């Protein structure tokens, strides 16, 4: 178990900078998930912690020791790779035990520890097999065993589930979670899959374009996204965003066709603001209901437990998620009811969250 401290870490390749000064504190025993679209620098950050990439600037410390110049093996990290990276010419047992062999652990002790790890991961029947003869899920478990056997201070996962099919992914997800609860080792997990991120994380780090957008519990990230990027990236279907402009007594939305009466809290008239509402926070009402927005149905997506209704709101796309048994026909009119508590406001310029509105929201009239 170990804490990880990341201070102003940067990474550049030749002339291209891919990580722009990341600060992050990971507590001992914590399960941290780094979430972001591909190319956001999340894997690079993980590989810098592992020691597979040089650190161009800043400092990474594990348990208070700066590891910038240490070899991977001296850092006490174990890593699970996306395509497993099992040694094809070794049996499962040899794969799992290789790090012990390198470390010079006697064969007898090695066998005991391999057996113990195999029992935990239910690999006992497969110890003599070659990776070629294993299924994807089994390979994944061997890769985890290879990481576990070293009893590392830190577990690093580089999108380990993205090569599995949907069912296995869910199963492996809960296995990783259970494993973490039992071993309680500090873990850093990189993924672009938000469901994976939400379900696994104690704390979630959302990255974009080489910067950290927000750090928080999955709940915080979902209910109080710190930026427009986080708001639209986390949650499916994505949060609805309506562009607006601050006027004398509220917001003018959708190019002036809708108005939102709201205290403008010192923002100058003419400031561009984006208002966001999650599809699941919108209520579907009969068209013409007082205080409801009128919209036209474009498409209904059936999900079984609920349905996503895509509507057209004066030319802007908008989605509503409902679990009620309503099946509006495409082309028909519906009413949408929004509550001020569910509205998020972001600066259109910088994308950062604006909480100034929230404090003094009166009942809005739309």
């Amino acid at each position: 178990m170990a804490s990880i401290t990341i201070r102003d870490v940067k990474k550049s390749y030749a002339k291209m900078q891919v990580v722009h000064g990341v600060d992050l504190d990971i507590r001992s025993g914590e399960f941290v998930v780094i979430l972001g679209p591909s190319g956001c620098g999340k894997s690079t950050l993980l590989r810098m912690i592992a020691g597979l990439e040089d650190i161009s600037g800043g400092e990474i410390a594990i348990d208070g020791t700066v590891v910038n110049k240490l070899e991977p093996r001296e850092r006490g990290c174990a890593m699970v790779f996306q395509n497993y990276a099992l040694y094809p010419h070794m049996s499962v047992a040899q794969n799992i035990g290789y790090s012990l062999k390198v470390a010079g652990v006697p064969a007898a002790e090695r066998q005991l520890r391999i057996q113990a790890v195999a029992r935990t991961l239910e690999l006992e029947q497969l110890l003599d097999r070659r990776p070629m003869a294993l299924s994807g899920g089994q390979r994944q478990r061997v890769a985890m065993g290879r990481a576990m056997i070293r009893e590392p201070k830190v577990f690093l996962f580089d999108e380990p589930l993205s090569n599995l099919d949907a069912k296995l992914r869910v199963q492996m997800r809960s296995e990783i979670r259970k494993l973490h609860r039992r071993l309680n080792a500090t873990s850093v997990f990189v993924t672009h899959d938000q469901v994976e991120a939400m379900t696994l994380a104690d704390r979630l780090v959302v990255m974009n374009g080489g910067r950290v957008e927000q750090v928080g519990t999955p709940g915080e990230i979902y209910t109080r996204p710190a930026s427009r990027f986080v708001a639209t990236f986390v949650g499916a279907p994505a949060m609805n965003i309506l562009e607006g402009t601050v006027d004398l007594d509220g917001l003018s939305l959708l190019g002036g066709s809708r108005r939102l009466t709201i205290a403008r809290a010192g923002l100058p008239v003419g400031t561009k603001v984006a208002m966001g509402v999650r599809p699941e926070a919108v209520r579907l009402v009969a068209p013409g209901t007082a205080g409801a927005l009128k919209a036209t149905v474009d498409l209904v997506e059936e999900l079984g437990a609920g349905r996503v209704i895509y509507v057209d709101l004066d030319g802007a796309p908008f989605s509503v998620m409902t679990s009620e048994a309503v099946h509006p026909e495409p082309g028909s009119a519906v009413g949408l009811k929004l509550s001020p508590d569910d509205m998020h406001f972001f600066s259109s310029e910088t994308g950062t969250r604006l909480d100034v509105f929230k404090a003094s929201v009166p009942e809005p009239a739309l």
Partner: protein
Amino acid sequence: MVERTPFLNFFTHLILFVGFVFCVAPFVVVAIAASHNLRDVNDVPMSLLPGNDFWVNIKTAWTTADLGPKLLNSFIMAAGVAAGKVIISALTAFSIVYFRYPGRTFIFWLIFVTLMLPLEVRIVPTYAVVADVLSPYQAILDVTGLSWLIEKVSGVHVSLSLGLLNSYTGLIMPLIATATGTFLYRQFFLTVPDELTEAARMDGAGALRFFIDILLPLSRNNMAALGTIMFLWAWNQYLWPLLITTDQSHATAVTELKQLIPNVGGIPEWHIAMAGTLIVMLPPLVVVVAMQRWFVRGLIATEK
């Protein structure tokens, strides 16, 4: 998907068969000639029905050219070249692919250039070096006046020399130092996924450990293929062994075949020469057959 029609099947097999006959016919003629006696082998045209003297001719060829020790020499040379080549190619390719150091590209090109300088081109300087490996160092000492200085100071006359003529080392070493194997390995190492290298680093394996534990086992098919090719190539060497083995004790089987070929005006003992040829051809054939399983696997297997 390849089309399957009876006509095409027949036609492709016909081409295959013609090619086979074309390749095998000379060997069949050699074998038949080796079974005739002196009179029959010189008939024009020679009878294509086998004679009865095959084993007699083989025995005569074996004793005349003293093939026993010569085959052993050939084997030592070919095996030495094959082994040396496999080791040195794997090491150089490992260095070029897995390490970043100043001058890497330059060294790569130096190795590349040796492809354009086969043994035949550099045979005179190579011979000079093998004749006295230390002569360049002696030259440096003489030119810089160091040997004069040493002689003045200590009274010892410096005279370095190490001749490798008529030795296995001299036979083998110059044939090892070429680039073909390095390229074969380089191409293979480039296909080994980076994540495997990284996994080994995370497991704590250093460079040499990774090379021995991971890369070499993965490239064993490659090794078998390269080893086989190099064994055949070295076995068939003629010019180099001929040049540096002035003494019979280190002569190879291929150069000794010359002994069996009748001189102009001598007795035309072509049946003995053909029998000797058959004997000398046999060991490489055995190697190919033995290695074939690995060889083919090296060419078709795509182990992930």
